[in-house]
């Protein structure tokens, strides 16, 4: 299945889940679990804990599906945000068990955009236009769910500087994407 078709499938299944259709929910799970579990594992490397979070996330997807606004955003983005929130909430409640330091992720995104979905190339291009430290801190924070305190430690920078990198980086990204 190509990416567009996959996204349409996800969109359609979530619309059905909004209407409490359980078979569609099972299909949505099959379509998305590997991607969402991969997303959680970046934030919570412990597989058991990540699986618990995945279960909670799907439970919340079922319960909160009626809050999804198809007119404003894509189903896939909504699923990811809900899942990331769930993982971040969980990790903030406890100390990280293992270090997650595969910084290749940052390089993956900024180095080669050929494997990205077409609509994502824009973000990749814009990320390359902002300063390296802004790029690193935004991607690391987003992908690993690092808090400000963790970012301070990782990047060995004061809080004010970090916040400024993130704020300015996001502003520049926005300007670039809207240009």
């Amino acid at each position, binding site marked *: 299945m190509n990416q567009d078709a996959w996204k349409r499938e996800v969109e359609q299944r979530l*619309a*059905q889940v*909004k*209407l*409490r*259709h*359980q*078979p569609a929910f*099972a*299909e949505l*799970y*099959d379509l998305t*679990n*590997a*991607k*969402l*579990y*991969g*997303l959680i*594992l*970046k934030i919570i490397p412990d*597989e058991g804990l990540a*699986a618990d979070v*995945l*279960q909670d996330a*799907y*439970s919340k997807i*079922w*319960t909160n599906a*009626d809050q999804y606004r*198809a*007119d*404003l*955003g*894509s189903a*896939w*983005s*909504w699923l*990811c*945000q809900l899942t*990331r*929130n769930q993982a971040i*909430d969980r990790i*903030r409640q406890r100390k990280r068990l293992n270090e997650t330091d595969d910084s290749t*992720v940052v390089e993956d995104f900024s180095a080669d955009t050929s494997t*990205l*979905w077409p609509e*994502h190339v824009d*973000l*990749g291009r814009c990320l390359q236009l902002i300063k390296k430290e802004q790029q690193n801190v*935004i*991607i690391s*924070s*987003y*992908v690993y769910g690092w*808090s*400000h305190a963790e970012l301070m430690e990782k990047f060995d920078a004061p809080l004010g500087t970090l916040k400024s990198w*993130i*704020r300015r980086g996001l502003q520049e990204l*926005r300007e670039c994407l809207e240009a």
Partner: protein
Amino acid sequence: MLRSVRYQNPKVRDHLASQYAMGLLLPAVKRRVEKLMQQDPTFEREVIAWQERLAPLNELPKEVAAPAYVKEKVMAQIQGKSAPGTKTIASWWQSLWFWQGIAMASMALFILLAVQPFGTSVPEIPKLSYVAVMQTALASGEAPLVISAYGKTEKTPSRLELRWNDRTDRQSVDQATLWAIERDTGNVTQLTTLAAGATRIDLNGSQWQAVKNSLELVVVKGNDFNGEVLMRGICIQLADWNQA
């Protein structure tokens, strides 16, 4: 209500929206932002716009198949949850004593008419085959609308009849659309566009088939199935009156 002037400042709003999408807010601030999203549709749009901008980053992690037990647990969990539209039909139906009365009266009327003088040329009476008691999303009391589906006869097409509950406020369904969700596949079929004051809708063969195979009927605002759901109801197939 979060009516603070601070939350009206465009810079603050944009900052909060972007930080929420990044996952960088402290729990208390995050809760306030989520509350603000519920109360302020414009702010909700701003947050979703940031989510969309950053969404490509969700493609970075590699896919990892989740352990098989997770799906089993998740499915067991949702089946145990009493979601609005999936409570057991029996208990839901039992709670609607008023509509049970209506249904029983309809059945009694049907029986009465069905046993009219034998051998005379009594017109064939349409059979009431399906009923959907339509509830609003904020269902707390009585259902506002009942949709009944009658089979075709030699002289009349199959049809839907819309009967409003006089004891509830009548909801506008003008320009709304009626959809059927297929029982086995979950596929959706648009049955018809509703008009204000409509009480009877004749059905063609494929529309009737869609009603017949439906798990639920859904009234959606506008012409898009993803639009706001105004009402929904489980479509119940009624047994023949002479069946035990």
